[in-house]
């Protein structure tokens, strides 16, 4: 049961993180296309924001690992 929950949880976490990082990537590429001279700043902001989203996703992943190891 714990294993099943961990698997489903990991899947949902991946969906959430994927949507989030995808939206950042979309916004960043659009802004770089619109204003190529600001590419450096935009890239920095993109990596920073992506790291925050990844952090949230990793909280979920850790919970899933703990569940799987207990189950």
């Amino acid at each position, binding site marked *: 049961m714990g294993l099943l929950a961990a698997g489903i949880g990991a899947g949902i976490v991946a969906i959430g993180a994927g949507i989030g990082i995808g939206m950042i990537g979309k916004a960043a590429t659009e802004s770089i296309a619109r204003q190529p001279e600001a590419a450096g700043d935009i890239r*920095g902001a993109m990596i*920073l924001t992506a790291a925050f989203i990844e*952090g949230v996703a*990793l*909280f979920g992943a*850790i919970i899933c690992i703990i569940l799987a190891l207990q189950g």
Partner: protein
Amino acid sequence: MIQTFRRLFLTILFLSVSTPNLFAADAAEKESESPIDIMGTVADHDYFKFFGTKLYLPRIIYWSDGEGSSQLSTFSSTKKAIESGMFEDVDNALVPTDGVIKIDLSITSHLVYFWFGLGAVALFTMFAGSRYKKGVGRDIEPQGAMQNLFEVFFVFIRDDVVRPNIDEKKADKYVPYLFTIFMALAFMNTFGLLPWAATATADITVTAVLALFTFVITQFSGTKDHWVHIFWFPGVPFGVKLLMIPVELIGLLTKPFALAIRLFANMMSGKIMIIAILGLIFIFNDMYGSVAAYGVSIFSVSMTAILYILKLFVSLLQAYIFTLLSAVFIGMAAESHDHDEEHYHAEHAA
């Protein structure tokens, strides 16, 4: 003084190594039911592996025996500890025959690679430092690949990570710490790519300690505004001020926690992924015979090669992200608001 410490350290190191700890790969390693041990490759070990040879590391344990008296015991290896009769092996963990372990200070493979990382940074910076002292790089342009590489990394950290994120007047004070942590993480992460090596950063204790450094430095560089924002949030009604205190306190602790977890999970997942994909060969060999294993190996090996390139990128990226976030956190705490409240909120709401 430093000379004395160095002699002492070398003596201890020599004593711990000179006892015959070097065993050829144990033939009697026990067979697990699974053909490949995935967690074993990321777990911490009591030995240091080098080209199939294992160098057993000393165990230093602070423990209290049955009568309740505490003592510090050192053994040159786990085997020696068991031979002494004071400890026994329970599920691959060292447990006293009588009493409890208080603190386990044993040197482990992850700790050794942590030292390697820091040692590599020390050598690298000392090398570059001696060059700059001679004037190479100041009066004339930097010479050789190593010094150019150093300058690329250093200038990158100083100009692209630290200075944009921390108040200009204070920024240069934090460059040494952030440069050290960047280089140490880059070395530790890339050492983990060596086939026989352990990734020190795939251990939550290592990343937690590094995040703790950032946390402590952040708090000590916090200005009055930083603490006011935590305990008495400006510009909101009284009730909200009370409500904001626990929220801000949790936010304070989440930052280093996320920092530690991010690095740990990234490095561990990369390692597990590579082992799992390579392990498919052995699993297929067990289940469907050697022909299937040959077939899978074409997929597995090419996939691993791609993953290795990705992991090289990720290990440098994670070192960068750790440093960048440390700089951002320190910068947020060290910021002093000379400008008025109105301006501040307009700026930070965006």
